[in-house]
């Protein structure tokens, strides 16, 4: 019955040809284009220190974006990440008032992040509620708790060595945050693309029922993903608080939407099932370049967001417009 001459090949196209036509390549081209435009637009652009400072535009958001990318690939979302930053930062500020040192602050920042992630995870995986509304709720709750603790005020007085995270440099011009960003990118890249766990994430995102019926512990995987976004929010909280040197309840307000923008710009399908970490890395650079370049031209932040908004919609709309134009000749 079997015909060895008709054996099924492993792949139809080479991996190289598939890579060439991918989203990441398109985005990389956009990134390069923006870089070139920026270098002509402002004389201050091609300066190592300025570029280094520019990385702050995206490093903290990207740290969260990597975890968020995995979560979105799995078909969920976490809109409470910025509020977790607020709560973690507030907790650290409280700890400082009670004389905590840097190691304790790091532990608290990460711990609060994990706890918030577990809280989200519980509602979504144990109670089975839709993550978008749960995290809209916790978004209010977590930041709300920060407001209850801090009100209108702020915490400062962080220990001097705490500033290393957000204000430190290694290897001359490379910031500590950039290094942390790179390490996290590599870890999440390996996690999503090279491990069984990552394969499970893709399976769940494509068909949660099918994944369950295939023996994947869907609830456990999703819970871990929420823990990860919580944890990364904690890491971002440490970096951001360290960089600013103070805490207000309004810290990182609105950041969740920038994180989601970064993930979607990176080619991750908001509906789940596909995406890549390299894509998110490039998207982080694209967003950083745009905001930095516009900043050099003294464009106000709020107008910058127009560019980001247009970029977000444009990058997704363009392939579809092209497909429509091409397909018009054929009858549907």
């Amino acid at each position, binding site marked *: *019955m*079997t015909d*060895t001459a008709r*054996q*099924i*090949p*492993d*792949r*139809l196209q080479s991996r190289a040809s598939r890579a060439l036509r991918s989203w990441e390549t398109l985005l990389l081209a956009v990134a390069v284009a923006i870089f070139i435009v920026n270098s002509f637009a402002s004389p201050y652009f091609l300066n190592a220190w300025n570029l280094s400072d520019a990385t702050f535009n995206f490093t903290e958001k990207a740290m969260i974006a990597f975890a968020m990318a995995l979560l979105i690939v799995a078909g969920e979302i976490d809109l409470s990440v910025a509020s977790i930053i607020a709560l973690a930062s507030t907790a650290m500020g409280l700890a400082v008032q009670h004389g905590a040192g840097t190691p304790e602050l790091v532990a608290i920042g990460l711990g609060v992040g994990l706890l918030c992630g577990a809280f989200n995870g519980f509602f979504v995986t144990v109670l089975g509620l839709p993550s978008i509304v749960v995290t809209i709720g916790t978004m209010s709750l977590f930041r709300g708790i920060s407001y209850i603790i801090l009100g209108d005020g702020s915490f400062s007085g962080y220990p001097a060595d705490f500033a290393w995270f957000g204000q430190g440099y290694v290897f001359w011009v490379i910031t500590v945050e950039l290094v942390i960003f790179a390490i996290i990118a590599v870890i999440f890249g390996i996690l999503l693309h*090279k*491990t*069984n*766990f*990552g*394969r499970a994430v*893709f*399976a769940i*995102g*494509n*068909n949660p*029922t*099918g*994944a*369950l*019926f*295939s*023996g*994947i*512990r869907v609830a456990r995987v999703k819970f871990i993903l929420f823990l990860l976004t919580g944890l990364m929010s904690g890491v971002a909280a440490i970096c951001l608080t360290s960089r600013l040197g103070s805490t207000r309840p309004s810290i990182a307000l609105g950041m969740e939407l920038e994180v989601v923008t970064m993930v979607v710009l990176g080619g991750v399908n908001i509906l789940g*099932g*596909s995406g890549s970490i390299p894509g998110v890395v490039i998207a982080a650079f694209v967003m950083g370049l745009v905001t930095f370049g516009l900043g050099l031209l003294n464009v106000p932040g709020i107008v910058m967001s127009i560019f980001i908004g247009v970029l977000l919609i444009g990058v997704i709309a363009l392939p579809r417009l092209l497909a429509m134009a091409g397909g018009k000749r*054929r*009858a*549907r």
Partner: protein
Amino acid sequence: MTQAATPVVSMDAITKTFPGVKALDRVHLNLYAGQVTALVGENGAGKSTTVKVLTGIYRPDGGTIRIAGAPVVFANANAAADAGITAIHQETVLFDELSVAENIFIGHAPRTRFGLIDTGEMHRAAETLLARIGAPFDPRTRLRDLGIANKHLVAIARALSVDARVVIMDEPTAALSHKEIEELYALVDKLKSEGKAILFISHKFDEIFRIADRYTVFRDGAFVQDGLVADIDQDILVNLMVGRSVDRIFPARQPSLGEDVFQVVGYSHPTEFADIGFTLRRGEILGFYGLIGAGRSELMQALFGITKPAKGVCKIDGAIRVIRSPADAVNNGIVYVPEDRGKQGAIIGLPIFQNITLPSLNRTSRSGFLQLAQEFALARDYATRLDLRAAALDQDVGNLSGGNQQKVVIAKWLATQPRVIILDEPTKGIDIGSKAAVHDFMAELAAQGLAVIMVSSEIPEVVGMSDRVIVMREGRIVAELAGDALTPETLVRHAAGIGAARVMEGA
């Protein structure tokens, strides 16, 4: 019933291609007023594509559709509906949150002077339609509160409300009880007497010969033959479908039964099944028969760990095991090939090889890291063993035909080297050729020492393949049949509860 009458709808040389696949290749199909035409073909023959072309979901790439002789082009589903073509699908495709009347009239509700929906008139008209087809419920009922048979009735009422000329029925009896099926046949006769042209798609030969006047056979997207049902018989039809003579013979088996591998005692669920107990031996094929809704799939899903039983014990190779999740089940060598291939079986969006290796990743990977070479090797091995037809192993499993997707699902589970394999309606919706392949395969698995549980609603399959059959009714085991006691009559009697209640017969 004149041969020369103009068909109400005709498809002339219709072609429809998708990337890499020619779903329809210059096919012909004629539907006549007041007659039932059966569209017959294996899986992948092009039947569902035909339905989508007729209902305006797809535009054909070539050929002409004619209504009463005049060529038409359906720009969209609305246009087809306006032309009088409606379809009733296996899973009724309506709105649970709306009322029966709203479901019947959505898209064409009667209006008052101000453009608002005239609810009074709508309910009146709905009542009339429901009475016409003998439907016993209130048009104000929310659709969600009705059973599947009644939902079909609503769909038919809707077809009547748009004064459809053509009613397409796509496997409408799949989820119906015997009584409901007879009622449906009566309804079809009524629609015929009203002059509707009916396209009836079914895999069940007895159904085809019972209600169809004409037949059209497709094979691999091409037209093979059409004609009057009176002029052919089952064998000819099968021959046309498959292109070769296929005897409905099941593989001869010499079951050599080994020791008990799987034992279930007192399994109960609050609402789905109670007091389930049976033993399974190596090399055995245990059939589970029952009416739809008897609780067989629910039991199997509990055995597989999808749902949790309220009480009960299961033993594997004599040792008690607790199965709380599919992962537990797989670790204990129990695997489940589900009935719903698309949603529960295959993961569409992932490539074939990843589907096959998904439960076996801890064997192909190293310390949690993926090893693609090992994965491809494993996938290649099982793809060859099951004679899978696909362009490449890294293609999306969603591109495969139903029969091949089923092979991927089976391959996936065989790769875990299970002890017990549960197959839930394994040949449902699959063409005859592939059915025979699956049956041969099951026999081979049993011969190799696997224990096989087969849930099936097809009597020939149950009788032909099983060593023993357990019959379930309303969540309980009502009979265990084997040998001479295993006949279609006893199966049906126990499943429907005719005669004595709980009988244990064995050989």
